[in-house]
């Protein structure tokens, strides 16, 4: 992708940090989301049990993924849903285009779908003369402004109300400026209704697909998802392979975790369960339903027992909401479709370390994400593993471009550090030297980065090693 070729993470970060309005919008919004989540999970022990259950369900599904996908395909087919397999995004885009062409569709109405973002579907369709309209309110706003989502659940979260008002006034013909939320919603509804009524094809994502019954489950709050999947003649659903669950009884705990973590709701306003196209005698619903199963690197991720945990993700977005880095820079700075902690572990695995490995450096490993992740993904451990693979091709490296960061200078630094911390005489020499220079170290390299906003650390004249003896503390 164009944008990704010129991905300059450092510059993006600096730019975002300077944007006071962005930081304020994000902080306010994240505070609300964090608080809402807290309020629907008041009992810590209950939540921990639920998270353990969520983890176990998803683990079980991943363990038998190939079987479950085949079962899903068989049951969907039996129900009249047409199933397509796509190894990469180009193939998935091609399948969508084929369906649209077959129905002579020049436009498509879309429900919110991160997989379609991963496919860069809108851009692809545009190059083929097809107009894809985002109908989720947040997506609608940023599409008007030619932006990409900055959050996987609340895509326009970086915008405040005034900004939305200005976008509507500027981009939608005959629209007066208003900051009234109801009026803004009414404006969007007016535009969208017309398009729902006229579109031949609707496209959506999938939150969970149930192999046992061949059911696609989709949660949303605005009803636009239901419109996209029921009004047009044709419904196309796109999903990543990892979204499949074994059975219907797996749904309730995960649904509770998803909506509680994502938006702090006990349940969303709409829970759509789609099991077939319109049946004989039914008065509504699409005539055709298609399901596109996208791999795009997922089966490779699945093959590594540790990295596999990335695929437990149910895309709730709560790791973004709790991340001290995300809240300060927002989603666009990450330069890829999936931002925040989940993006830091997923993107390098999908795109390779050379293109996206730098994302793994943007974490203090504070663990706030892993603490809240509803399916217990050990995000910091996976970030650490990506850092290791960035330098090292050994130890069973599985990510593309392993070792890309390997360089003599850093290797020497860490070798030196190892020596200083394994040879006691060197260790003493080191602390004594540091003690002798005190805070008069040459201001270069890492120390320069440190002293940008801090005074240099002041080394003590005598180390603890030296001083314990005087206290009568014995060696052993």
């Amino acid at each position, binding site marked *: 992708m164009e944008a990704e070729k010129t991905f300059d993470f450092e510059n993006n970060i600096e730019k975002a*940090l300077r944007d006071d309005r962005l930081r304020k919008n994000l902080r306010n919004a994240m505070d609300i989301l964090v608080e809402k989540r807290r309020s629907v999970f008041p009992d810590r022990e209950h939540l921990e049990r639920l998270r353990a259950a969520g983890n176990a369900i998803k683990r079980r599904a991943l363990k038998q993924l190939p079987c479950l996908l085949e079962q899903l395909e068989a049951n969907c087919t039996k129900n009249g849903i047409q199933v397509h397999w796509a190894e990469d995004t180009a193939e998935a885009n091609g399948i969508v285009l084929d369906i649209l062409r077959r129905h002579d569709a020049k436009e498509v109405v879309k429900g919110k779908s991160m997989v379609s973002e991963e496919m860069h579907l809108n851009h692809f369709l545009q190059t083929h003369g097809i107009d894809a309209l985002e109908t989720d309110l947040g997506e609608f706003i940023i599409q008007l402004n030619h932006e990409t989502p900055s959050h996987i659940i609340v895509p326009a979260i970086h915008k405040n109300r005034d900004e939305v008002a200005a976008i509507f006034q500027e981009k939608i013909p005959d629209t007066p400026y208003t900051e009234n939320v109801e009026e803004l919603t009414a404006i969007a509804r007016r535009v969208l209704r017309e398009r729902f009524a006229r579109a031949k094809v609707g496209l959506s994502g999938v939150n969970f697909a149930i192999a046992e019954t061949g059911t696609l489950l989709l949660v949303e709050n605005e009803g636009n998802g239901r419109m996209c999947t029921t009004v047009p003649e044709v419904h196309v659903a796109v999903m990543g392979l990892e979204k499949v669950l074994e059975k219907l009884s797996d749904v309730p705990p995960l649904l509770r975790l998803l909506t509680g973590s994502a938006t702090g709701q006990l349940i969303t306003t709409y829970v759509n369960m789609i099991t077939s196209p319109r049946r004989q005698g039914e008065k509504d619903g699409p005539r055709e339903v298609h399901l596109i199963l996208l791999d795009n690197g997922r089966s490779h991720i699945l093959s590594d027992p540790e990295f596999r945990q990335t695929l437990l993700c149910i895309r709730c977005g709560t790791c973004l909401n709790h991340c001290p880095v995300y809240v*300060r820079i927002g989603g666009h700075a990450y330069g890829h479709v999936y931002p925040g902690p989940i993006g830091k572990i997923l993107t390098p695995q999908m795109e390779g370390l050379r293109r996206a490995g730098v994302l793994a450096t943007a974490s*203090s*490993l504070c663990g706030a994400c892993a603490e809240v992740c509803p399916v217990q993904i050990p995000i910091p451990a996976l970030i*650490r593993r990506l850092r290791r693979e960035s330098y*090292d091709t050994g130890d069973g490296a599985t990510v593309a471009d392993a070792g890309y960061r390997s360089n003599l200078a850093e290797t020497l630094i860490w070798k030196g550090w190892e020596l200083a*911390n*394994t040879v006691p005489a060197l260790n003493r020499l080191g602390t004594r030297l540091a003690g002798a220079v005190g805070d008069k170290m040459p201001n270069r390299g890492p120390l320069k980065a440190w002293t940008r906003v801090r005074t240099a650390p*002041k080394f*003590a004249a005598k180390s603890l090693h030296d001083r314990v003896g005087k206290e009568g503390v014995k060696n052993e």
Partner: protein
Amino acid sequence: MEKQEYPAKPETVYFFGTCLMDAIYPDAGLAAIRLLRREGLSVLFPQGQSCCGQPAYNAGFAGEARAVARKQLEEFPKPYPIVVPSGSCAGMMKHHYPELFAGTPEEDAARAFSDRVYELFEFLVRVLDVRLEDRGEPVTITWHSSCHALREMGVVPYAKTLIGQLKNVSLVALERETECCGFGGTFAVKQPALSAAMVADKVADISRTGASKVVAGDCGCLMNITGAMAHSGVRIAGQHLAEFLWERTHGS
């Protein structure tokens, strides 16, 4: 986190001084040792000890981290508890050593070592059941939780228990007490702009409390926060809780 089990009060403990305390905050290390000895324990400080290995481990240099960790396994051979005055280093030694040595000949040794690791304040409260008598002047402080003390070790309540025993100390909580200060080891130098933004917000939060001192249980955070305060001219002191406790409670 599995439920931690605690031994009866032992006669002897090992003290692991951490590399930052060794080189930059030795007073805090001595204070921690004094707190332990005052409870009648004999404290051993193996001179061959160095660093827990976390800096390399988190930076992606697992081999180097393992070599340094192995040195610590060797230096603390007897079955005494190992008391660590840092939630972060304790977390490394307790929770990451077993994974670092998984599949190596030292796997069992690492596990046995990890079982003996306790964070200082956790040990003072849960094992020694200390009762502190405050001899200091009235003071208002605030407390900074390190992320690993909070999330890996779950020991922040013990630090607060100890502060709560000091009758002349009033503790004002930070507004965002659970948010990282931006230290993160090499993160501070690999992502300096992000780290700077995080520590600036932390300093602002500390300033808003009106406290004259910020107390913490981890030297990494302390170095980050006090360095940023000094650089921006904020006149609030920073101190390791061990040193603060000792200062306020020892008879002079």
